[in-house]
C-alpha cells in the first residue's frame, strides 16, 4: 500500500511540479502571482483534446500512439505558451507600475473570463479525453503496480523539467532570464531586452502548465472548464513549499506535495485530501513564507 501510494504520489507530484514551475518562473521575474495560471493549465488540457480530435479527423498518427501523444502535447504547449504571452500582454503589462493589488485583480478577471468562456463556448459538462495509449498495468511485486499512463506522465514530466533546467543553465536566453530575475534594472543596463525575457518566461511557464493539463487529462480521462482551480492552488502550494521563485524548489515541492497528498488520501481520508493541501499551504505561508528551502529575504526601505 505504501509503495502504491508513493507511485500515485509521484504521478500527481510530477503534474503539480510542472504547473508549479509556471508560478515560480513568473514570480522570479515579476514578483507576481500569476493567478490565471490554473486556467492556462485547463486550457492546455482542452488544447490536447482538440488536437487529438483534429489528428483523428485528418487520419494522421493513427497507428502510432506515442507519436500521437507527443504531437498533441507539442501542439497544446505551443497554444498555451502563446496564450500565456497574450495574457501577460493584455492583463499584466499595462499594470507594471500600478499598485500591487491591480495585477492580482486583473489576473482574477482573466481567470473568470477563461473559465466561463470555455463553459459557454465548449460545454458546461465534462468532456472525455480520447484514448491514446493502450493501458498496461505492470506488477511491481506485492500489491503495487504502475500503469503505462503513469510511466508516461512521470517520464514526460521529468524530461520537460530536465529540458527546462538545461535551457536556463546553458542557453543565452536562459542566462538572460536568470539575470533578469536577479535584478531587472541591472539586466536592462546590460542590454537585455527585459520585455522579451518576460514574454519568454510567460511562454515557457504556460507551455509547461499546458503540458501538465494534457497529462492530467490523460490520467483522469476527462477535462472540464473548472478543472484548473484545485490543481492550480495545489501547484501554487508546491511552489511556495519549495520557495517561490526557485526553479529547483518548485520541482521538489511538487513531488513532496503529490506524495503527501497520496499518503494522506490513502491513510487518513480521501474526502479531506484537498483540505490537506490548503492546510499545508496556509501553514507554510504563515510559518515559513520563504519556503522549506528558501532563504529569508528582507524588505528594502
Amino acid at each position, binding site marked *: 500500500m505504501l509503495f502504491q501510494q508513493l507511485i500515485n504520489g509521484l504521478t500527481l507530484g510530477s503534474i503539480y511540479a510542472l504547473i508549479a514551475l509556471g508560478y515560480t518562473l513568473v514570480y522570479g521575474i515579476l514578483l*507576481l*502571482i500569476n493567478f490565471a495560471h490554473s486556467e492556462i493549465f485547463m486550457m492546455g488540457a482542452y488544447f490536447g483534446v482538440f488536437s487529438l480530435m483534429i489528428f483523428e479527423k485528418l487520419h494522421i498518427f493513427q497507428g502510432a500512439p506515442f507519436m500521437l501523444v507527443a504531437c498533441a502535447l507539442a501542439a497544446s504547449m505551443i497554444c498555451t505558451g502563446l496564450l500565456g504571452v497574450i495574457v501577460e500582454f*493584455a*492583463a499584466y503589462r*499595462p*499594470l507594471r507600475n*500600478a*499598485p*500591487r*493589488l*491591480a*495585477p*492580482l*485583480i*486583473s489576473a*482574477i*478577471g*482573466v*481567470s*473568470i*473570463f*477563461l*473559465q*466561463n*468562456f470555455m*463553459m*459557454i463556448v465548449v460545454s458546461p459538462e465534462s468532456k472525455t479525453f480520447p484514448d491514446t495509449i493502450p493501458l498496461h498495468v505492470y506488477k511491481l511485486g506485492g500489491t503495487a503496480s504502475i500503469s503505462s499512463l503513469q510511466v508516461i506522465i512521470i517520464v514526460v514530466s521529468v524530461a520537460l523539467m530536465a529540458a527546462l533546467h538545461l535551457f536556463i543553465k546553458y542557453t543565452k536566453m536562459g542566462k538572460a532570464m536568470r539575470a533578469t530575475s536577479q535584478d531587472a534594472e541591472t539586466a536592462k543596463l546590460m542590454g537585455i531586452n527585459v520585455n522579451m525575457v518576460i514574454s519568454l518566461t510567460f511562454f515557457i511557464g504556460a507551455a509547461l502548465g499546458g503540458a501538465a493539463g494534457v497529462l492530467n487529462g490523460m490520467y483522469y480521462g476527462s477535462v472540464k472548464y473548472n478543472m484548473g*482551480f484545485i490543481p492550480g*492552488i495545489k501547484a*501554487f502550494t508546491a511552489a511556495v513549499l519549495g520557495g517561490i521563485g526557485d526553479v529547483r524548489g518548485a520541482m521538489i515541492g511538487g513531488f513532496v506535495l503529490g506524495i503527501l497528498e497520496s499518503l494522506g488520501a490513502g491513510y487518513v481520508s480521501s*474526502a*479531506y485530501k*484537498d*483540505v490537506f493541501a*490548503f*492546510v499545508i*499551504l*496556509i501553514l507554510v*505561508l*504563515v510559518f515559513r*513564507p520563504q519556503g522549506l528551502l528558501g532563504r529569508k529575504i528582507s*524588505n528594502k*526601505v
Partner: protein
Amino acid sequence: MKGVAPGRRTVIRILTAAAIAAAVLLPQILQRYQQYHLIHVAGLIAIYVLLALGLNVIIGYTGILNLGYAAFYGIGAYTAALLAIHFKISFWLLLPISGLAAAAAGALIGMTTLRLRGDYIAIVTLGFVEIVRLGLNNLDFLTNGPKGLPGIDQTILVPQLTLAGRSLKLDNDISYYYFILLLVLAAIFVLLRLHNSRVGRSWVAIREDESAAEIMGVNTTAMKIQAFATGTFFAGVAGCVYTHWVGFITPELFTFWESVLLVVMIVLGGMGSTAGVLLGALLIVGIPEVLRDVLQQFSGGGASSMKSFYDNLILARMLIFGVIMMVIVIFRPQGIVPPKRPRVSEKKSGSEPAPDGGV
C-alpha cells in the same frame, strides 16, 4: 460629517436624501405593480450591499485583498442556523453573536496573515474559504453536508421588533427588505464615522504604504486585525439575516466565486468609496436579476428568442464580470465613483508648532 467642500456638500446631501427616499419607497412601488419577485431581489441586493460595505473596509480602506470573504458570511449563516435550530436562540441575540463569530474568525485570519505580503494574504484567504466550504460539505453530522440546512424558517420563531408602538414582524420579503435597509444605513453611519477618524486614517495609510505607516507610528498590527474583524463582522450579521429570511442554506452559497463577485462589486464601484460600493452591488446583483424579470414578462413565455437571449446573458454574466475586472483596473483603477478624501477647514494656524516629545 466633517469636511467636503461646501458646494458639493449640498449636492451630496440631496443625492443621499433622494437615494434613501427611493430605497424606502421601492417596495411600495413594486407591490403596486405586483412585482413580488423584484421585492425579493431588492432584499438580496441590500444583503450584498451590507457584505460589500464590510469587505470594503478590508479591501478598499486597508488595501488587503481578502478573497475569502464569503467564508465569513458562511460562518455567520451557519452559526445562526445551528444555534437557532438546536437552542432556539432569538434572532436578536443571534444577530450580534453571528457577527462576533465571523469577526473572531476574521481576527484570527488577520493575525495569521499579519506578516505576509498582499498577494500571499489573497492566497491564504482563498485557501480559507475553500477549507470552510470543504468543512461545511464534509461535517455531515453538524451541517448536513452538501444537502444544506433546510427548513430553518419552520424551526425558529419569527423575529419581531416593536418600536414606538409599531411592530415590525420579520415574516415576509418586504419586512426583511426594510430591516436589511436599516442595517445598511447603520453600517454606513458606523463606517463613515470610523473612516473619518484616526482609525480610518490609519487603515488608509496602511493601504498606501504599510511600512511607512508603521514608521510614522501607526500600530499596523492592531489596525490590520481591527480592519479584518470590523469587515468580517458585517459578513456575520448578513449571514444571520440571510439564514432567517430565506430559511435554507447550503455550503455552495459561500464559495470562492461568491467572494470574487463581492470583489468585483468593490472594484467596479470604486475601492474605498461608499457610494461606489453601493452602486457596484446594485449593478452586479441587480442588473442580471432585473433583466431576467423584465425579459420574462415582455416575452410572455411565448417569444423564446428573448428567453434564450436572457439565458445566454446569464451564462455570460461571469464572463462579462471577468472582462469588467480587467478593464476597470487597467483603464479606471479608481472605479466608477472614486473615493473622496475628507477635507479639513481652510484656515491657517495662528499658533507656533511645538514638538511635544515622546513619552
